[in-house]
């Protein structure tokens, strides 16, 4: 392959550093998941409590680190990077948008109207 025509130096140091980062982020997530500090749980930002925002942002950061460093995406050509990342992000965001909007609609129906079951 065109990448292997030159000698490879070892990337082990970088790999262990990323492992360290992922471990720390996971520990923070689990710690917050067990403790559930009130000031994060009871306060909302755009209809979701802050603790959930923290979890989702940390998870996205972990996903970015795994994809970039472990799956070697940082070494790939930009066209491949975009073909994979842009597709997934766009479609997932679109899917989430539809489901959250429709889910909210159905929740409101159950809460505010006379239909109580099997909607």
């Amino acid at each position, binding site marked *: 392959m065109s990448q292997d025509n030159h000698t490879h130096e070892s990337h082990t140091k970088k790999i262990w550093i990323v492992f360290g980062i992922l471990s720390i982020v996971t520990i923070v997530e689990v710690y917050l998941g067990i403790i559930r500090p009130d000031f994060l749980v009871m306060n909302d930002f755009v209809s979701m409590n802050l603790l959930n925002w923290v979890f989702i942002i940390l998870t996205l950061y972990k*996903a970015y680190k795994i994809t970039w460093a472990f799956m070697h995406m940082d070494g790939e050509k930009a066209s491949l990077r975009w073909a994979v990342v842009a597709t997934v992000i766009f479609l997932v965001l679109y899917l989430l948008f539809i489901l959250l909007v429709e889910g909210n609609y159905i929740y409101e129906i159950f809460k505010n109207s006379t239909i109580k079951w099997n909607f």
Partner: protein
Amino acid sequence: MGATVTTANKTENTWGGGNEPMGASYGKLMMWFFIVSDALTFSGFLAAYGFSRFKFIDNWPIADEVFTHFPFLHGVEAPMYYVALMTFILIFSSVTMVLAVDAGHQMKQRKVAFYMLLTIIGGLIFVGSQAWEWKNFITGEHGAVETKGGSILQFVNKEGERVKLADFAATLHEDRTQHKSSNGVWFDEESALPTYSVAEVQAGFKAHPDLLIRTEKIYRDTEEDRANTGLEKGLNVNKKREILNRAESERMLANATLVVEGANLTRNEYGSKLFADFFFFITGFHGFHVFSGVIINIIIFFNVLLGTYEKRRSYEMVEKVGLYWHFVDLVWVFVFTFFYLV
């Protein structure tokens, strides 16, 4: 396949053929595209989970209360610790996989084999752990009853702590046995009966005046919730499930039709029927991917030992399989967040 050498064709069009337009070999590119499609499949499942949870957000079980087991620590409530350990194990196996790929780039056969072996072991530990979690989930812990309307009632003592059915259900002499096609009416058959019958639970509840019922509904501390006279004063906390007072509890228990112990695809003792259904489906689908990943890793591991990639002068197969393994880890990171944390 992995070793077909294509020379970068600089004189012709990038897309003219005989070329690697995106800089990756055919096999690696197809692995990436497969990962994209599988990622979208899992996103579909997780979005469906989010939708259902959003629809029943007032009744959804709280993960901290369901996943409390830790191996060898019987009776200890250890919320989230074991699933955190599982996440670590999978991340660590991802690390050993990257180290294997890295060793492959340097053509160090024994190092590749060693790290692949560690990855396989990590994967097997993860699948075993998931199976253990399933076992605990299916067996259940406290037990509950289901009402005519399909909601789950759990039991607490007057401090608000969970109480098991075994701790208070009475033993009545009853003749109800499991219908099998050999002895059932009209050759009817059913699955095994629960340990206690509804009558036994109701009798036990009556005999223990300190017990209260905890419903599926989550207390939100709104005006409406505070004015609700059916709730037990002093025990209801914001974002925790509602605890009814004794009179209301007895009224609700009169509606009970089934004793529910543990979980299956149609009902579970933790709350909403969909909760167990989604849990089994999504973690099962993911577990299936981990398992297939382990099998593929074993095959490639043997190929490494046999020197197949030395002959090919390239360890790219290890890299491709590594991509799949990292994808499996990536999915778990998301499943972990949305099932256990959020």
